[in-house]
């Protein structure tokens, strides 16, 4: 494989014009893209140039892999959520960057008597565990990992996934009023605040955003400013909003961005209030939202035509980038199909790396994984024909 100088550069470093050998401290060993699909996990690996890729997989062939994510504290520690309509939930753990895996604990028992939530017919329905949608490893401890599950609840493991305990205070935040959408009532987003280990943001479809400031003991809804006209009897209800995804730049943890069912939103006060920033997007419906690794006001969304037509407007797959923290958006199209494209991009299927320029990645329900090594200016597929992509995560390896 050809290797240029770019693959050795951490951000903010400058290439040496004389091509002298870089020190070991300068090296970035590469990029690892973790892809969860309807029929297994795939691991895509490259050096820092991000132009040639090795593909391994399928791991767990035939199983739905809702999410795979690596520990920021130990990049060789990976967690995967493996699920099946036949065999239920399995959690897999790797200690060698995905070369080998071991099944760990899969017992997700709600704390105490789990109670009930709203059901489709207006009655109350008991909480029932179905699957793990999202795994979020701790920023500092490889053995601590959070799980967002359906029916919506938050679990934590402090022993590398062997055992799981519910953070049951979350369901006390008006859980009896939460109601599943057509896709199920899943806790799909977990954002850890790097400046305050006690603060965690989560999002649930269809309940909204919630925040804890005491490491998960107590939670409160953070949905002020969201408007769900046509979806809720009270469009500004405290809970019930169909939040699809929230994202944060770690350098500015009080600023959050949200892709809601409809509307792209922003909060400058850690979720206490939200303002719409959809601006000039062709559609403000979509699933993922992502923030540039080094530019906290550069935000990415992938507009989808509507909630009944889950494909890009006009058959053109376009990532939209705002460099102004919202409202003004530019279409990024180079290298993406601009005709006859009717795939979807799901909520957990985008990610950014931390190289400079920032790499941006997303996977589609058509099985393509696209990458941009220049913050979205141009795109190329890493792989085109995987099963439908459910999740994409990226590790920038030391």
């Amino acid at each position: 494989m050809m290797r240029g100088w770019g693959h050795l550069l951490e951000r903010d470093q400058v290439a040496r014009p004389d091509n002298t050998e870089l020190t070991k401290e300068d090296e970035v060993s590469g990029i690892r893209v973790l892809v969860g699909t309807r029929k297994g996990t795939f691991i895509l690996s490259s050096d820092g140039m991000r132009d040639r890729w090795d593909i391994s997989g399928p791991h767990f062939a035939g199983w739905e892999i809702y999410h795979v994510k690596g520990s920021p504290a130990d990049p060789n520690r990976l967690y995967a959520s493996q699920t099946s309509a036949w065999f239920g939930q399995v959690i897999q753990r790797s200690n060698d960057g995905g070369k080998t895996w071991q099944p760990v604990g899969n017992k997700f028992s709600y704390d105490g008597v789990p109670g009930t939530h709203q059901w489709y017919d207006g009655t109350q329905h008991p909480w029932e565990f179905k699957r793990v949608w999202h795994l979020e490893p701790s920023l500092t401890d490889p053995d601590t990992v959070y799980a967002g599950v359906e029916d919506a609840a938050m679990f934590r493991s402090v022993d590398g996934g062997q055992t799981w305990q519910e953070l049951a205070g979350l369901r006390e935040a008006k859980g009896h009023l939460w109601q599943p959408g057509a896709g199920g009532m899943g806790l799909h987003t977990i954002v850890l605040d790097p400046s305050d280990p006690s603060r965690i943001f989560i999002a649930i479809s269809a309940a909204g955003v919630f925040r804890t400031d005491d490491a998960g003991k107590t939670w409160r809804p953070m949905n002020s400013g969201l408007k769900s006209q046509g979806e809720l009897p009270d469009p500004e209800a405290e809970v019930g909003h169909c939040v699809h995804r929230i994202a944060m730049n770690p350098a500015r943890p009080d600023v959050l961005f949200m892709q809601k069912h409809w509307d792209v939103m922003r909060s400058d006060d850690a979720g206490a209030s939200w303002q719409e920033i959809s601006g000039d997007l062709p559609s403000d419906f979509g699933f993922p939202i992502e923030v540039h690794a080094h530019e906290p006001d550069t935000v990415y969304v992938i507009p989808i035509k509507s909630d009944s037509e889950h494909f890009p407007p006009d058959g053109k797959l376009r990532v939209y980038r705002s460099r102004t923290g919202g409202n003004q958006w530019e279409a990024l199209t180079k290298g993406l199909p601009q005709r006859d494209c009717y795939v979807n991009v799901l909520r957990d299927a985008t990610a950014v790396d931390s190289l400079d320029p920032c790499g941006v990645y997303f996977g589609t329900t058509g099985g393509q994984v696209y990458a941009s090594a220049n913050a979205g200016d141009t795109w190329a597929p890493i792989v085109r024909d995987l099963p439908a992509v459910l999740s994409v995560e990226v590790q920038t390896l030391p």
Partner: protein
Amino acid sequence: MIRVVLPAHLRTLARLTGELQLHVDGPVTQRTVLDALEATYPMLRGTIRDHATQQPRAFLRFFACKEDLTHEPPDSPLPDAVANGTEPLRIVGAMAGG
């Protein structure tokens, strides 16, 4: 010894090839066979029976001696041919296709 045939996905999960053999103390029933299976292969816990309810998962079937035993009570004796190891208990994923 009790012979058990697992579906392919569970053989992979348990790192098995072919059928397996289990020792079961006392009466040979669905429950005692599954208890022995999960004790020997703990990674299978929760994949055949729900953790909370201990009910078999909806899309699994239990076949033996050309009979569907899925809906037999879990404490009913399995056929003698299973108990004496002549025939295996087959755990089968329900058919799905399109």
